[in-house]
């Protein structure tokens, strides 16, 4: 460990503590909100379901930018960022799929419907899971980073096509309640935005932790190679 990382550690711990405080407060507030008129308590899952989805989308965009930057600069820091943010985004998308499934079981009476949004979210999840599988299959670090970056670009291009084409196919998912004529009370919106902030911060903390692991791993690998060479 070099001495530079000392401050980084403190900031990371602080950010982590802030996330926990906001999350605890959000859960407390959400639990005390009145029940929604038609759906009852299960409606409150939206306070997590939508923020994790948006966070996952941001993660995919960051992964794209990091991948492109890696291909241009060949700097492994961007590769570390790409893999870290993809993993975190995948976890958030999984949370989105699971919370959606739970909601669907209660409101629709079934865990899964082959609806446009569900299907496209699942396809995205599989695409980025394939990204991680591809990384594991490639041994040589430079090749691994290059292939993964190319695949990340390919996947990201696919996402809008998947979303539009499946939307033509069928839609059952409820329309957004925030945009386009939704009726979301203002104080609920505030809670929602707070939880949105919590999810994004949580994703940032997790990503930074993973980036540091990746960097440490790379350092270890290079040390091991040096030791072998001696």
């Amino acid at each position, binding site marked *: 460990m070099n001495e530079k990382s000392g401050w980084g550690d403190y900031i990371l711990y602080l950010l982590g503590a802030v996330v926990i405080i906001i999350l605890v407060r959000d859960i407390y507030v959400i639990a005390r909100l009145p029940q929604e008129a038609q759906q009852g308590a299960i409606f409150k899952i939206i306070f997590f379901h939508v923020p994790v989805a948006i966070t996952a989308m941001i993660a995919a965009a960051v992964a794209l930018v990091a991948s492109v930057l890696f*291909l241009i600069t060949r700097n492994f820091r961007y590769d570390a960022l790409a893999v870290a943010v993809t993993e975190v985004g995948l976890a958030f998308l999984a949370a989105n799929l699971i919370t959606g499934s739970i909601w669907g079981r209660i409101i629709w009476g079934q865990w899964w419907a082959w609806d446009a949004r569900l299907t496209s979210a699942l*396809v995205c999840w*599989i*695409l980025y899971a*394939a990204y991680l*599988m*591809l990384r594991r*299959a*490639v*041994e040589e670090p*430079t*090749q691994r980073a*290059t*292939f993964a970056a*190319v*695949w990340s*670009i*390919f*996947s990201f*291009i*696919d996402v809008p*096509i*998947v979303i*539009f*084409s*499946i939307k*033509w*196919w069928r839609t059952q998912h409820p329309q957004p309640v925030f945009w386009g004529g939704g009726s979301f009370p203002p104080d609920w919106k505030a809670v929602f935005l707070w939880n949105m902030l919590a999810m994004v911060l949580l994703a940032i903390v997790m990503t930074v932790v993973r980036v540091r692991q990746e960097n440490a791993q790379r350092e270890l690998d290079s040390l091991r190679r040096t030791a072998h060479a001696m």
Partner: protein
Amino acid sequence: MDFFRQVMVIAAKDLRAELRTKEAINGSLAFALVILLLFAFAFDPTGDTTREISGGLLWIVFAFAGTLILNRSFARELPNDCLDALIAAPISGAALFLGKAIANYCLLLAVELVSLPVFGIFYNVRWTQRFPELMLVLLLGTWALTVLGTMTSALTVNIRLREVMLPLLTYPILVPALMGAMRLTMELIAGTPINSENVMWLKMLIGFDVIYTAVSLVLVETILVG
């Protein structure tokens, strides 16, 4: 040599090698027949429902059988370090990629054109009702499968678990193209013409082909040379 000639030389080389050994195309054809046989047990092959979903079945057969050809595309160059020689040759990665893609395209189309009548006979489907439109969908859908499959073939040629990784990467990313091709094939086999409602699938297929061909041509050099 100009770009086009380089592409054709690579394509001709691949086709010649394949026609002399016939290892990929024979395997792929046999596999297509086996899947067609297995589907008969999964669904009632004489029922009306089978006719309705037959377009979907057909593309699953094409996609499965296609990976056998695509898997071989770059793997064939591994013995005797042929791949290194190809990369060192004075042609661009894009020319190499496009040449291989065209060779794969011809082989895939050959397998599909043999499977189609067999499918029509086995499942009692009159697939020739809208023949020109069906051929158009076949050409567009197969190009989507080819361009992404050739790209993943280049990606996976040197890695562990090559045979597993190629379909794992190719199928999910192909979802929009396969979906469009399946929808259109189903309707065309049922006798519905291309109309204002389903023409958007055709547009999507064309867009998919154009986008991924362009992106692959740009990025393939990075994959092959690093």
